[in-house]
């Protein structure tokens, strides 16, 4: 495609200059002329022509010098220089090339050859310009992408670190780039002294994976803080991811619901490699197997939120890993693999160094730190209840207080609801409205959880907790609980909240009634004093945590009061 160019002609011979300018003009180009090298450089600076026709031998400044200066002024832009010469000696042609000449044309001028050369140089020029443009465009896009990733990471960190990843009992390794590798680690203190941990691994990399992580984290923390059960949180996350992710994207994940006070670990693993529960007592290693499809695959109606229940004791350790760990290759293209991991676990003698041992094994295997794998260890340390205060009091952000404080309300749950509903989050929303008690809402939730579990399991389902005395009984207790709940066709649990206040003083009363035959509360309290079985805690704890704990003689209604006075 011939195009009109602006062309500088530098030629000292007036007739040659005139002739050449006429030829080039006739071909449709814009021409500026110079009679020597110095003039040519000056004109180039002023007019910025796109191509130069340069005589080699000129007074004042010769063509070689002028060509060098023009090339320098042009910088990255390609300004082709065609030397006008009938030079026949190789030495002179070499000088032209060294000065930056792109082509030659000999006298006498042939208009056809001249135009062909000009167009060839123009194509070269356009090619160079396109390359530069694209280089700059790619550079800008890349910078933009990095900026966006930084911003996305900053936002995500605010959401992801809303939890308790920095708790003293959690150790993890995850690269700063993990978010864009699709790895995600969340941990939060849940009400009633529990801790929820979620390790997720999105299929795919880059921004799409990171974007999927946002609603997951938000749902996890938001619902945990509002007191939802781990099942409900998992269902919501699955439903949300199913809705927003494209079909080929999903999230392999392990959800840990850790309740050290009650000695219960609940695990849901969909698609991640085996995690491990390592018992402190005998070093036994219980695999936390994947038994489900990953999150975001199943419709809500067919999603299976069945957790496995395992006994948990102080000193136990939980280990989770993403498949980046097993599938990472070394320089010889070998996989790290499960066998190597198991060998490390096998040879470990001090559980406290396990995390470091695995890191060291990875480092030895690869000879470097890799950034596409996640490893997390949660240890069951400290006294039950000694965990950091959970962030419940910050939710809901900016809610208004309910006044005056003189009201009561009652929920009654019958079989259909006992099977599927969880009244506790709803109750929490209500209790958060009572500002003098807000700082104790975690405790109240613990007590409420205990009262409700007691009413359902012992009152309505008539289960005997003494069968929870060993790990096997533990599992069968929860299987039996589920079986009876599924079969339940009558019975109820009712929860009544009453709030009274006068001046600065007031109280909250929670009354829990169930349809069961009732029980001898005093005897149960005494019994629990000496009982050693797993999960034995219950009523005594309720008495310790509340201001008042009393019951009807028939044991069918338990009442608990929380009081406040003035400046709480």
């Amino acid at each position, binding site marked *: 495609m011939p195009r009109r160019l602006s062309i500088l002609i530098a030629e000292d*011979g*007036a*007739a*040659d200059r005139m002739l050449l300018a*006429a030829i080039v003009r*006739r071909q449709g180009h814009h021409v500026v002329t110079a009679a020597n090298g110095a003039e040519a450089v000056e004109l180039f600076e002023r007019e910025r022509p796109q191509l130069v026709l340069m005589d080699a031998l000129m007074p004042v400044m010769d063509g070689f010098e002028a060509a060098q200066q023009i090339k320098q002024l042009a910088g990255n832009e390609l300004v082709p220089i065609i030397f006008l010469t009938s030079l026949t000696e190789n030495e002179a042609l070499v000088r032209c090339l060294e000065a930056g000449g792109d082509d030659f044309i000999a*006298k006498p001028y042939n208009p056809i050859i001249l135009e062909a050369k000009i167009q060839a140089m123009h194509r070269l020029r356009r090619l160079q310009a396109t390359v530069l443009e694209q280089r700059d465009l790619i550079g800008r896009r890349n910078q933009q992408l990095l900026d966006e990733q930084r911003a996305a990471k900053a936002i995500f960190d605010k959401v992801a670190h809303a939890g308790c990843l920095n708790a003293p009992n959690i150790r993890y390794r995850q690269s700063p780039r993990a978010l864009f590798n699709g790895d995600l680690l969340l941990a939060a203190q849940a009400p009633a002294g529990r801790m929820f941990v979620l390790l997720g691994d999105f299929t795919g990399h880059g921004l799409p994976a990171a974007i999927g992580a946002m609603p997951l984290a938000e749902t996890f923390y938001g619902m945990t803080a509002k007191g939802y059960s781990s099942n409900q949180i998992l269902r919501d996350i699955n439903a949300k991811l199913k809705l927003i992710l494209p079909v080929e994207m999903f999230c392999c994940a392990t959800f840990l619901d850790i309740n050290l006070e009650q000695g219960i670990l609940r695990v849901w693993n969909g698609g991640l490699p085996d995690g491990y529960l390592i018992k402190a007592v005998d070093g036994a290693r219980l695999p936390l197997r994947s038994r489900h499809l990953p999150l975001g695959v199943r419709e809500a109606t067919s999603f299976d939120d069945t957790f496995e229940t395992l006994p948990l004791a102080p000193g136990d350790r939980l280990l989770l890993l993403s498949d980046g760990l097993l599938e990472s290759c070394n320089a010889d293209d070998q996989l790290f693999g499960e066998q190597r991991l198991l060998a490390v676990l096998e040879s470990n003698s001090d559980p406290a160094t396990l995390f470091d041992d695995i890191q060291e094994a990875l480092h030895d295997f690869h000879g470097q730190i890799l950034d596409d794998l996640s490893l997390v260890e949660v240890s069951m340390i400290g006294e039950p209840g000694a965990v950091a205060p959970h962030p419940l009091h910050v939710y809901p952000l900016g809610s208004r207080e309910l006044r005056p404080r003189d009201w009561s309300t009652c929920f009654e749950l019958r079989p259909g609801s006992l099977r599927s509903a969880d009244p506790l989050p709803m109750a929490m929303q209500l209790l958060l409205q009572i500002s003098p008690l807000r700082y104790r809402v975690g405790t109240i939730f613990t007590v409420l959880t205990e009262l409700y579990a007691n009413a359902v399991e012992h009152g309505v389902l008539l289960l005997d907790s003494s069968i929870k005395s060993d790990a096997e009984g533990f599992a069968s207790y929860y299987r039996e609980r589920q079986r009876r709940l599924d079969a339940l066709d009558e019975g109820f649990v009712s929860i009544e909240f009453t709030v009274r206040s006068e001046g600065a003083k007031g109280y909250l009363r929670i009354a829990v009634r169930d349809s069961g035959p009732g029980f001898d509360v005093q005897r149960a309290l005494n019994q629990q004093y000496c009982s050693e079985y797993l999960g034995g805690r219950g009523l005594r704890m309720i008495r310790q945590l509340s201001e008042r704990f009393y019951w009807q003689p028939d044991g069918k209604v338990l009442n608990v009061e929380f009081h406040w006075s003035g400046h709480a």
Partner: protein
Amino acid sequence: MAEHLDTSVLVTLQEVMEAEYPVLLDTFLVDSEERLRLLQAACRSGEAESLRQAAHSFKGSCSNMGAALLAELCREMEESARRDQLDEAPALIERIEREFAIVRILYRAERQRWGGPG
């Protein structure tokens, strides 16, 4: 032996220059007188390289204008200067001067044919 003027070149020049054709002829004659002086000066000074460059430039210019024999003489001059054979130079310069005198008459005729004296 080359002709004094290559008529096919003159036809092309007319096409390219159109109305400017006589101006080009005038310019060439003025320019050539200057180049001839440079050639004579270089010859007198005995500097082979400046003689070579002057002959080279004059040759290019003559070839563009179709002064075929003059261009050929300049080429011979350039060659002997390159070989540093300055003893041949005075004779060659004389032949170039004579050829230029002929060419000048021919160009003036050509010019008059086009647009009368300038």
